[in-house]
């Protein structure tokens, strides 16, 4: 702010009134009940299905409740101000008023750095809820037959764990780190669409809250895939799933759109495509997948919603529909979604390795080609999820081939990563450890994926704990490990404070060992005949399951180590971090910590990519000679 005299802060109660998270929650709840009453007014107590009524299930009122609830939430957050101004003909503002203090973290803030931190905390919250679900699942599976949770509740747990993780974590890297660092890395002062950026975050939070409320509506029995016609059949708890995933889809789509627009249009002078940090390339390919895959998900969930409220028959074979339609469309989204989760992991690993191996990224173009290849190929493989379903069986060889082809571009990432390490000067810092663990985890995950892509081997492993272990190796081992790598790497820049390295190493080793001890035995469990999402399992598998459960609890405990480290280091110890603790050449480390609101005094001019370790011409970005505004 310009030279304004020091303002007297109004009292707390005054600051709580206005557009903020508190108002948003109040408006959200109000909106929910408004929609609920409208729905009941339209339909009475029950949606009469195909002329047969009489059960107190009114999906319409639940949907309307959720929609108006979300609308109220967003209005309360302050998202109504801008469209209202535009409606009356005021032109768009490039920036909203920047807020100060803690309050800006609890409302609409158009500073991409604030949104990044909001994302980190918000995603962390739902990551822990999803993790808690996993712990409860493992409690249930301690015994083959005894029921801790009743069968239906168990399915809700499984579904919530899967949905929460797949939905929320698909923004795990792009939300916090791409929002925070992409503008810095490309030398911009903001994202292309700052309000949309904030909207994606709050949509995600609204979705997470909605999914949590499924318990009050009887839960949902379908797991994260929401297969039809079980989906049509289920309780109103299913509506939470549909609304949650649709909100996540909208959030993802807009996030991807914003990222692409930012990277395409807002790069600083000199930052050519071949100088773009590899992280931005990873973000770009992920964003393309998000932008294009999420609409398919929203569409198919829209069909499911119409089936449940307007009584269309998209997925009901005896009404002219087909459950295959859902499976096809869901996996057209679902397989790119898997790479939406995996690609940011590649990006983080390739971005961090040069810093800690003190070498330029090996084979930059190959790495980019690998990511773009994965982006492209991920659209051509979806029916490998349907190998056993009897659909298009004559196309199975094609899908087998296309699925296995993906390992070629994935192999590029491996080659580039490994060769970057070769002859390097490797420093085993905490972020580096997490990156190196990625190689191990993704190796196992990738190799087990080859079993699943091969139809004969897939017969036993399909729908078993083998496939479950496979995708936990790729997603948890590939995404969550790099998520933590990114946290340990960038937190000094984001907050200005150091995380405790010793605790970080304890966290890493406990997590790495417990992770492998949890999921490696599950390959065996799957091969030995344990089906996914089963509340029971054969009695002779109890030892494996107990072992896994205990390892999972240790894995959960390792997260508490992290949480302690995070809270203690940032709130209590508060040791100032050096500006560039890792001696990185990347431009974000040349900025003060934490980064000032405007990022750059002057838009920098890039002269090389940020990987010039060991090269004579070190600086990758120069301050511009002319005053600000002279960019491109």
């Amino acid at each position: 702010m310009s030279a304004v005299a020091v303002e007297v802060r109004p009292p707390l109660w005054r600051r709580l009134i206005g557009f903020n998270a508190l108002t948003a929650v109040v408006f959200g709840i109000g909106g929910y009940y408004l929609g609920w009453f409208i729905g009941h007014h339209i339909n009475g107590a029950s949606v009469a299905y195909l002329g047969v009524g009489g059960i107190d299930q009114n999906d319409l009122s639940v949907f309307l409740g959720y929609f108006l609830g979300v609308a109220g939430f967003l209005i309360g957050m302050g998202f109504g101000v801008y469209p209202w101004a535009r409606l009356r003909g005021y032109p768009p503002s490039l920036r909203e008023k920047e807020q100060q203090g803690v309050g800006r973290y609890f409302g609409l803030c158009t500073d991409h750095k604030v949104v990044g931190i909001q994302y980190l905390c918000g995603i962390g919250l739902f990551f822990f809820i999803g993790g808690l679900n996993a712990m409860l699942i493992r409690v249930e599976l301690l015994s083959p037959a005894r029921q801790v949770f009743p069968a239906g509740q168990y399915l809700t747990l499984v579904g919530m764990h899967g949905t929460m993780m797949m939905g929320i974590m698909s923004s795990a890297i792009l939300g916090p780190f791409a929002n925070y660092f992409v503008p810095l890395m490309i030398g911009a002062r903001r994202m292309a669409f700052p309000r949309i950026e904030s909207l994606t975050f709050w949509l995600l939070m609204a979705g997470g809250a909605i999914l949590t409320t499924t318990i009050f509506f009887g839960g949902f029995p379908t797991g994260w895939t929401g297969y039809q016609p079980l989906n049509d059949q289920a309780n109103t708890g299913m509506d939470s799933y549909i609304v949650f995933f649709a909100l996540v889809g909208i959030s993802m789509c807009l996030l991807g759109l914003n990222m692409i627009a930012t990277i395409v249009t807002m790069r600083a002078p000199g930052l050519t495509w071949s100088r773009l940090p590899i992280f931005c390339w990873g973000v770009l390919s992920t964003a393309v997948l998000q932008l294009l895959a999420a609409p398919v998900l929203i569409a198919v969930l829209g069909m499911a919603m119409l089936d449940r409220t307007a009584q269309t028959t998209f997925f009901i074979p005896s009404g002219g529909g087909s459950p295959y339609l859902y499976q096809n469309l869901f996996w057209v989204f679902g397989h790119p979604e898997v790479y939406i989760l995996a690609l940011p992991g590649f990006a983080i690993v390739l971005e961090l390795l040069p810093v800690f191996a003190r070498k330029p990224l090996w084979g930059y173009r190959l790495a980019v080609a690998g990511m773009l290849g994965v982006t492209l190929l991920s659209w051509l493989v979806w029916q490998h999820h349907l190998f056993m379903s009897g659909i298009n069986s004559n196309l199975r060889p094609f899908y087998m081939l296309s699925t296995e082809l993906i390992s070629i571009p994935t192999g590029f990432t491996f080659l580039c990563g490994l060769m970057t390490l070769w002859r390097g000067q490797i420093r085993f810092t905490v972020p580096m450890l997490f990156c190196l663990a990625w190689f191990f985890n993704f190796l196992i995950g990738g190799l087990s994926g080859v079993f699943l892509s091969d139809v004969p081997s897939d017969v036993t492993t399909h729908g078993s704990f083998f496939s479950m272990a496979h995708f936990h190796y790729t997603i948890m081992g590939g995404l969550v490990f790099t998520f933590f790598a990114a946290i340990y790497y960038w937190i000094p820049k984001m907050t200005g404070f150091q995380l405790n390295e010793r605790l970080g190493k304890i966290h890493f080793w406990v997590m790495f060992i417990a992770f492998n001890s949890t999921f490696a035995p599950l390959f065996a469990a799957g091969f030995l005949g344990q089906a996914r999402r089963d509340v029971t399992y054969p009695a002779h598998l109890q030892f494996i399951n107990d072992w896994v459960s205990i390892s999972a609890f240790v894995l959960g405990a390792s997260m508490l180590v992290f949480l302690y480290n995070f809270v203690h280091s940032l709130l209590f110890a508060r040791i100032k971090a050096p500006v560039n603790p890792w001696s990185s050449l990347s431009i974000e480390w040349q900025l003060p910590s934490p980064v000032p609101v405007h990022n750059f005094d002057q838009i920098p001019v890039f002269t090389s990519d940020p990987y010039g370790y060991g090269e004579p011409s070190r600086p990758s970005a120069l301050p511009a000679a002319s005053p600000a505004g002279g960019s491109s």
Partner: protein
Amino acid sequence: MSRTGAKILGVATGVAVAGILIGFYIAGYLVGNTPAFRPTVQGSSASPTVHLTIETVAAVGPTLAPHPDWVSYLVRNNSGRWERSTVFTLPAHATIRVTIYNFDGASGLRNPLFGRPTGLVGPELVDGKPLVVMPPDQPSHTFAVPALGVLVPLAPVADNAKNTCGYAPCLLSMAHRTMTFVFRTGKKGHYRWQCFVPCAAGFMYGFGGPMQTIGYMDGFLNVV
């Protein structure tokens, strides 16, 4: 120091709130547990016998359940009252003599195979008469324990019957059908039992709501 104190207080509050939320969360899942009903066991411990008296009602009514118009099984507890429990604790290798009063009308089977009673000791008696097979448009519900091979279709109250029971608890003076049968529990374990009739009207395929909620049309036999 006071700053640190405030922070500690803040974190402690956070931990407490998180703990309470987690507690509520887990409790939310656990409350779905239907309490088990343990009928009195007669006979010697070598050959125990249990009498179970069950009724099926078209609507469980406002006093017994959060979903008053859901169809449900009820069991007569040891003090002679109707209780909404579908989890029964039974001795192993015991003879179970079951009487089911059905107050509900016909729904019809999806798979006509389930009109044939199986897995019983002796025949299934419907109003005292042995049943060979029930036509598929007839059954209101079934009492089925697939792991024990037990399957019993329940005869419906006629559509034009007078004095039908609207919602539970239903009196035996109201229109009903009576099924009696005997089956044997096997070795120890948890056996699910369920209804195979798509009787939950208003849902696609009639298999939502009460058909997928323990305590209504589904339950366990805990054989101990």
